[in-house]
């Protein structure tokens, strides 16, 4: 069987895997935040990461996005792109984007401007200085405004949005970047029940087209979207499987409830 040829600049996912993390260790002042962690994310997969506080979920995202350099191990995007050789902007431009735990939108800029900054385009200094939105880009922003339900708030400063709306704006900023991998840290914290449902729908609709890793504490939410769930504990993968398998795993119960 022949493998389809790779287009220039395309991420090599011909083996069906988009992210390879192998034996990754990170320690802060002797504390092992990640301990020989290995994790593989399939192309187009929606993966949920759960685990008690301090299990290493956020550190894992920091490693993938270039914020933290691991002490050892390897992190590959597709088969060929070594993420450990790249810094944050390069990783973001390669197609791995991140929503932070604490909503971090640009409060003095308008909702529209927040999305404009996130837009996938040439992000060099001179290109940015002379950038003007073309018709397609404008349409794209309108589309995303519609998706995140903020069309009526487009010209308002992002700082005055409600907590839930800020979360949505940040998800919108992720969409604007048209990433191949989305890392979503606690997307539904502070959202109303209705907003949680809409977020679940949105993430499910993106599955297949993009690979998504969701970190979330809200188990009901995780159950509503999860195909596969990975449980982290003390910086390493405790177990992996469907939500039912994981919830009935005695080790998981022990980790969450204590001895």
């Amino acid at each position, binding site marked *: 069987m022949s493998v389809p040829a790779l287009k220039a600049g395309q991420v090599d996912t011909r083996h069906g895997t988009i992210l390879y993390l192998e034996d990754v260790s990170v320690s802060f002042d002797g504390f092992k935040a990640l301990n020989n962690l290995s994790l593989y994310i399939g192309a187009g997969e929606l993966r949920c990461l759960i685990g008690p506080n301090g299990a290493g979920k956020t550190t894992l995202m920091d490693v993938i996005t270039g914020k933290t350099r691991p002490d050892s191990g390897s992190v590959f995007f597709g088969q060929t792109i070594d993420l450990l050789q790249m810094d944050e*902007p390069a990783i*973001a431009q390669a197609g791995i984007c991140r929503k932070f735990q604490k909503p971090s939108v*640009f409060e*003095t800029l308008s909702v529209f*401007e927040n999305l404009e*900054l*996130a837009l996938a385009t040439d*992000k060099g*200094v001179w290109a940015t200085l002379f*950038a003007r939105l073309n018709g397609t880009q404008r349409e794209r922003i309108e589309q995303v405004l519609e998706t995140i339900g903020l069309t009526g708030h487009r010209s308002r400063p992002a700082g005055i949005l409600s907590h839930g709306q800020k979360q949505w704006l940040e998800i919108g900023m992720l969409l604007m970047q048209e990433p191949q991998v989305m890392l979503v840290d606690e997307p539904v914290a502070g959202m109303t029940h209705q907003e949680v449902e809409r977020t679940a729908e949105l993430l499910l609709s993106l599955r297949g087209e993009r690979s998504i890793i969701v970190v979330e504490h809200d188990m009901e939410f995780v159950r509503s979207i999860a195909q596969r769930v990975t449980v982290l504990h003390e910086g390493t993968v405790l177990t992996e499987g469907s939500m039912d398998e994981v919830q009935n795993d005695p080790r998981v119960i022990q980790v969450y409830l204590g001895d």
Partner: protein
Amino acid sequence: MLLNGLKNDKVMASVLAALAAISLIVPLCNLLFAPDSPLYFSAYTVSLIGKYLTFALLGMSLDLVWGYCGILALGQGAFFALGGYVMGMYLMRQIGSRGVYGDPVLPDFMVFLDWKELPWYWHGFDQFWLAALMIVLVPGLLAFVFGWLAFRSRVTGVYLSIITQALTYALMLAFFRNEMGFGGNNGLTDFKDILGFNIQSDAVRACLLMASGITLILALLISRRVINSKLGRVVTAVRDQEMRVRFLGYRVENFKLWVFVFAAMLAGMAGALYVPQVGIINPSEFSPLNSLEVVIWVAVGGRGTLYGAIVGAVLVNYAKTLLTGWAPEIWLFFLGAAFILVTVLLPDGLLGFWRRHPKEQKQ
């Protein structure tokens, strides 16, 4: 293109109109009316206002870096002084054999130090075009090297502020040394001509004021255009959430560097226009205190508006002119008090206060 959207920006439009009026009326009144006429402006007033305009440009350049990019640079005066020294070098070379020692090539201080020939870096400065180029290139290059090292290593906040102070202090010490070849302690002075015209004449002073005004207006319009571009929004975003901007794929250090170099070039132009109007440049222009004063101008006028820095620079310097004439010993106390009061009571400065109030009334 530079004037787009000015209609909706009333304060900016008023400041621009005021600057245009000053740059036209003051020099014309000086030249057209007799000294006993009530409409006459004295040569002293012309130089004074011309000097204020160069300070306004310096203040605005700091606002780009501080107000928009969030970098509290405490060494903006260094770029101003460098631009001033470049202009000083050109003016020294124009003296020719009219110096005290009458050497056709060497400036007086070099003859006095018993130097036999012109140092290599003084060559070509008798040409105005080269000097004009160096006025922006020298400050720009220093800002580029300094900024490249600092921003790439992600030096931010108070640490960056301290090293910018150190930069201007180090330059001051260096320029005090005679071996540097810039006149040491005394600096460069006794200028005679600029572009072949007598630098002391009323017409040249009027032209220098006009040139300062026009440069300021153009710089303000271009800066406004930069700030209203997408780059301006990226830079504002960097000020508020630097880390987040990196994760959107922007190389934050390059954006900071661009603004820092651009602002240094504007400060260099301001210095170059300042020197012929005051007739001297010496190492005290590098004094860290000068750069701190610029910060106060911007804070008083209001950060992040461009025109706030201009109004602040003019107001504070007008107060300085009045107070240092009347009671010089209280000037620094006044300056300190103004800074504290503005920081505590008017965090957006005088113009921020003025701008916000009508809005609140409307709502």
